[in-house]
């Protein structure tokens, strides 16, 4: 079977059916179905450790699932060859959770890296594009610094500039707001919205910051217990009466999502059960 076929224009950019993943004996996904439309900003939210980053790794073909179908822009990423995956990734920008900057390169070289490796552009044009993207994240003046000279928030902004430098079809932001001060956060939110509105770039946002997500996301999918527990527009979900959304958005410890990692009885582990000596 050919892993690539031209998708109908109105079809979802990403279509996931029957996704099942087991990692280290723990079921991460158990029959997830998900559609991500073209041209929108879709947020994936959920408690820590529910597999949001794993879902992104499935979408980009970095990690094959145990079962299920994942089609991105007409490419079946589960069955795609390495060449097909690389061709698809040329159209995807990915902001890593820990920035993943190339530590031996300057800020400028990091942002220029995807351009220089994929496109044969004149150096003057590369310079202009890189400076434009660095200006967008407020770090044009830091172009010659090394990653080791940057704060965590600044590194995320450089990684963001690198993710958008090729004006990709799809940008995946994995925890883009971590470590950002309120000014930088506001600017990054504006940038995500601008990229989406002016260039029609589809965005997937993995984040925990509900207030920030509400400002940019068209749709939120709440991942919990191996499923999509709830999905809808931000207002819909915050008004919804699903126990999942109520607990997650209110930040309550009690509810369907356990706060505690599975563990033996607390009292028994402390040796307090059974009446003592």
């Amino acid at each position: 079977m050919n892993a690539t076929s031209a998708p109908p224009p109105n079809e979802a950019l990403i279509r996931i059916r029957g996704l099942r993943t087991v990692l280290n004996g723990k079921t991460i996904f158990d029959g997830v179905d998900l559609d991500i439309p073209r041209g929108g900003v879709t947020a994936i939210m959920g408690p820590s450790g529910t597999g949001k980053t794993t879902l992104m790794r499935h979408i980009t073909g970095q990690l094959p699932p145990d079962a299920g179908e994942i089609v991105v822009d007409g490419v079946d990423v589960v069955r795609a060859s390495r060449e097909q995956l690389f061709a698809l990734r040329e159209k995807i920008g990915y902001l890593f959770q820990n920035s993943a900057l190339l530590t031996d390169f300057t800020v400028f070289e990091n942002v220029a890296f995807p351009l220089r490796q994929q496109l044969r552009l004149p150096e003057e044009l590369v310079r202009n594009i890189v400076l434009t993207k660095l200006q967008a994240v407020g770090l044009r003046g830091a172009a010659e610094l090394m990653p080791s000279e940057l704060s965590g928030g600044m590194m995320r902004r450089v990684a963001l500039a690198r993710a958008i430098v090729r004006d990709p079809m799809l940008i995946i932001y994995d925890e883009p707001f971590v470590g950002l001060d309120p000014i930088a956060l506001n600017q990054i939110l504006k940038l995500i919205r601008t990229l989406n509105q002016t260039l029609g770039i589809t965005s997937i946002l993995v984040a925990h910051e509900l207030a920030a997500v509400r400002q940019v996301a068209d749709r939120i999918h709440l991942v919990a217990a191996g499923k999509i527990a709830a999905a809808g527009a931000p207002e819909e979900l915050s008004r919804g009466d699903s126990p999942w959304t109520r607990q997650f958005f209110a930040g309550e410890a009690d509810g369907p999502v356990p706060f505690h990692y599975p563990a033996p009885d607390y009292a028994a582990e402390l040796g307090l059960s059974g009446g003592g000596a």
Partner: protein
Amino acid sequence: MNAAHRAFAPLAAGLAQIGACGRFLLHVLGAVPRSLRYLRETVRQVFFVGAMSLVIIMTCGMFVGAVLGLQLYDVLSRFGSAAMSGTVVALALYRELGPVVTALLFAGRAGTSITAEVGLMRATDQLDAMEMMAVDPLAYVIAPRFLAGVIAMPLLACIFNALAILGAHLVAVSWLGLDNGTFWSNMTASVDLWTDVVNGVWKSVAFGAVVTLIATFQGYTTPPTSEGVAYATTRTVVFSSIVVLALDFVMTAFLM
């Protein structure tokens, strides 16, 4: 898990590692043609693993040669054959000591730094980031280092041999008084270009491939933790040393 299973588990794990390393080698060889577009990176790596290793190679070469000159002059004098010191030094160096000692030094100097560098790239998601930018890390990171090892090792071994012969000459001729003409003429008359020098170069090429393969494999597959990188670096030196010495025996048996 029964006792037999437990007893054979390390053996099975070792065989699995060898199999994974073999598969990794095939992937690296497949990536070599694609890595030619990153020629500048390969040249940078030749400088890094080759030129940057020159100090240790030259220093050790000089001392190994000096010790050889001293020992051989002493031993051969007992049999009235001190004049053959230069010949024996050259044969020992070209056939065995040059390629093997250079490979062991290379594993300690360049192999460990390759493992640590690639391992840290793995631990900090830099390799994954390259994959996501549609840049193949096998072609951009691994293959240039592999090629650099294959190119640099024979050159380093030649330099090691040259400095070692110089060291032996300093001891045997300048210090112990062996005739200069005897030292050189016996050497040039007895050393064969193909069976001695070229075979030694082939060994160096093989050792360069093996050491950089082990170094890159250990770095590429290291667990993304500081302890993982530390163990991988240690394994590079241990495995490289064992494999180089074992391969030396096998190649000597075939090349003699």
